[in-house]
Structures are given as C-alpha cells and as structure tokens.
C-alpha cells in the first residue's frame, strides 16, 4: 500500500515540477496577449493653457482644455490581418479629440495602430495610419510589452509621425504600485496640421495665410512593468504657428499647456491594471514557484514513504515466521 502511495506521489511531484517551467516559458508567452476587443477611454486635461483663437489668429489663456482619447479594438480587421500575416495582432482604432473651454472641438485626430498581441511590436499591415495618412511605426505606442524592461524603447510620436527613443528614468511608486518612469522629449519639429479644425479651418487655408505648424513636447509615462500598461501620463505640450519664410515674425502659440490625466481616470486605470497584473503574475510567478515548491514537497513525501516501505518490520515487508508456541511444562 505504501509503495503504491509513494508512486502516486512521485507522479504528482513530476507533474508539478514539469508544469512550473512549462507555464512560465511555454504557456505564458502564448497566453499573455492584449485582447483584440479592448475598448478604453481616457480624459486628459490642461489647466490654464494657451490656445489659439482662429478668429483673431492670436493665443489666449483658457481655463481648461480637455483631450479625450478613445481606443477601440477592431476585431474584424485583426482577423483579416491575422489571415494575411499569420500573426496574432490587435488593431486599435483611436481618436484624440481635443475640446476647448466652450465645449467645442479644437482638433480631432483619428489613428489606426496595428501591433502584435503578444510582443506589442508594430505590424505593418491593416492600414496603419494617423489622421488618414498612412504611416509606418517602428516603435510602440500607448502600451509597453508585458514584463517591461528597465531600458529605453522606441516610441511612436503621432504628431511627427516618427519613432524616437523613450528613456527609462528609474523606478517610482505610484498609487501603491511599483512603476517604471519613462520620458521622451521631441524637439521643435514642423508637423502637419490636423485635417479637422474648428470654424471649418483647413490645412490649405492655414497654408494660404502663410503659416505652418511646429510642435515640441516632453512626454512622461508611469508604466506598470508587469502588464506594460501606463497608469499615468503627462505631457508638456507646445504648438506654434510659424510664418513661412519670415523667421523674424513672432510665432503664434497654437497650444501650450501641461497635460495631465484626470484624477478619476488615474484611479480607474490603476484599478484596472491592479486586477490585470494578478493574472500575469499568476503565470509568471505565483503558479511556477508554487508548483515547484509543491513538487519538491511531494517528492520528499514520496521518498519518505518509499524508504519506510523498505524498512524491515514495516507493514509491507514480508511477514516473518511467528515465534513457536512454548513447550508445555509439566506442573
């Protein structure tokens, strides 16, 4: 009986010990992926910002500018790209909608971002674009890879439509989470005007006025390294309308402000990331280490049982001959 129990324990020990690395190194890279049907919105705000008034063509101080960013996973398009490329991809259709203090649109920039669901590497298929113009991303955008590393990444900037390094600047604690802080500075660069602007202004009209748009920003992200999801983002964003061929003329500030995530969105993002990171940690840490420990324990028990079963006098050892009855002694 002990022999059989020790064999069962041995099988269970091997099961647990083998499952541990299989979960971490085989199952995790295949199971951890961004869901293709993700829908998420975030509101950012810039208080006391400078904003251009297209009627007067001058900057004015406004109490607040809101930036509503929505991303929506396009499952049908993701399936088409998967059929074409054989890769598990996510297609995000996004919209950055900027609202002035009067509640009216300042600009509206749609984007399509196609990336590998597991590694978050950009995939050049499925019509990746910014504001209707095809682009080719060489860097990540919106989300870092699972198990983010302490290193610089290439990050795509939608205004310049180019990728540039975003630098790892250290580990911080944010709302009780240990996060990696990243920073990217985009120097003054000439950028295209958004196709949708207020008062029916078009890029052609602005160009005819003799103006072009320049932009500079310092972008900051606080990223949960387990899920790769940013839990906070800020930008020191500046935009100017500069006179074409007249560097001596003073540029018009189109926008200048410190853009921050609205506090209630920070809280909801932290809650979402906290729940998701448990699932990732389950596959990368809790289950592998727990199973390894359990495997060792079961193996020890199995060996103990086996040793006991081989000891003379144990229940499973062959029964010795009983001692002969004593000879009757005459009284």
């Amino acid at each position, binding site marked *: 009986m002990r022999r059989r129990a020790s064999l069962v324990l041995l099988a269970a020990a091997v*099961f647990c010990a*083998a499952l541990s690395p299989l979960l971490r190194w*085989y199952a995790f890279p295949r*199971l951890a992926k961004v869901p293709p*049907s993700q829908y998420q919105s975030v509101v950012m705000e810039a208080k006391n910002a400078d904003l251009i008034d297209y009627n007067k063509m001058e900057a004015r101080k406004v109490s607040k500018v809101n930036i*509503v960013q929505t991303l929506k996973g396009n499952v*049908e398009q*993701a399936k088409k790209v998967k059929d074409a490329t054989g890769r598990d991809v996510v297609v995000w259709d996004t919209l950055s909608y900027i609202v002035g203090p009067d509640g009216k649109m300042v600009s509206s920039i749609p984007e399509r971002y196609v990336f590998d669901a597991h590694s978050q590497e950009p995939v050049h298929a499925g019509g990746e674009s910014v504001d209707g113009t095809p682009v080719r991303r060489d860097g990540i955008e919106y989300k870092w890879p699972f198990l983010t590393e302490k290193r610089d990444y290439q990050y795509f900037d939608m205004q310049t439509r180019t990728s540039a390094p975003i630098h790892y600047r250290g580990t911080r604690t944010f709302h009780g989470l240990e996060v990696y802080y990243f920073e990217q500075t985009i120097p003054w660069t000439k950028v295209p005007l958004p196709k949708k602007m207020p008062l029916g202004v078009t890029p052609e009209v602005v160009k005819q006025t003799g103006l072009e748009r320049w932009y500079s920003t310092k972008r900051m992200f606080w990223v949960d390294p387990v899920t790769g999801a940013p839990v906070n983002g800020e930008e020191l964003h500046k935009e100017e309308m500069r006179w074409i061929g007249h560097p001596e003329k003073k540029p018009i500030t189109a926008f200048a402000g410190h853009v921050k995530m609205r506090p209630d969105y920070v809280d*909801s993002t932290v809650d979402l990331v906290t729940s998701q990171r448990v699932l990732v940690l389950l596959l990368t840490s809790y289950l592998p280490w727990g199973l390894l420990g359990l495997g060792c324990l079961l193996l020890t028990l199995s060996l103990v049982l086996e040793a006991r079963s081989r000891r003379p006098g144990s229940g499973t050892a062959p029964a010795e001959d009983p001692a002969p009855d004593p000879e009757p002694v005459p009284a």
Partner: protein
Amino acid sequence: MRALIAAAIGLAAALALVLAITAIGMPSGETSPKPLLTTVPAHP
C-alpha cells in the same frame, strides 16, 4: 521501473495540460459597439 513509469505519467499529464490550455487560448470577442468619444465623459 515502476518509479520511471510514474514519473513519465506525471510528465505526460503536465505536457497535455499545458498544450490543451494554450490550444484553447483566449476568446477574441467582438468589436465594441461603443463609439469613439467626441464629448468629455463625466465619469470613467
């Protein structure tokens, strides 16, 4: 010999479980019917 067979059974069970889990994978779901927002929502 019995010990070897027991270990092989444990290993095969672990492999089968992991292969089954990864083969099933995650459901892809459907595109959300919600629109891309053009107003400032009051709450997340």
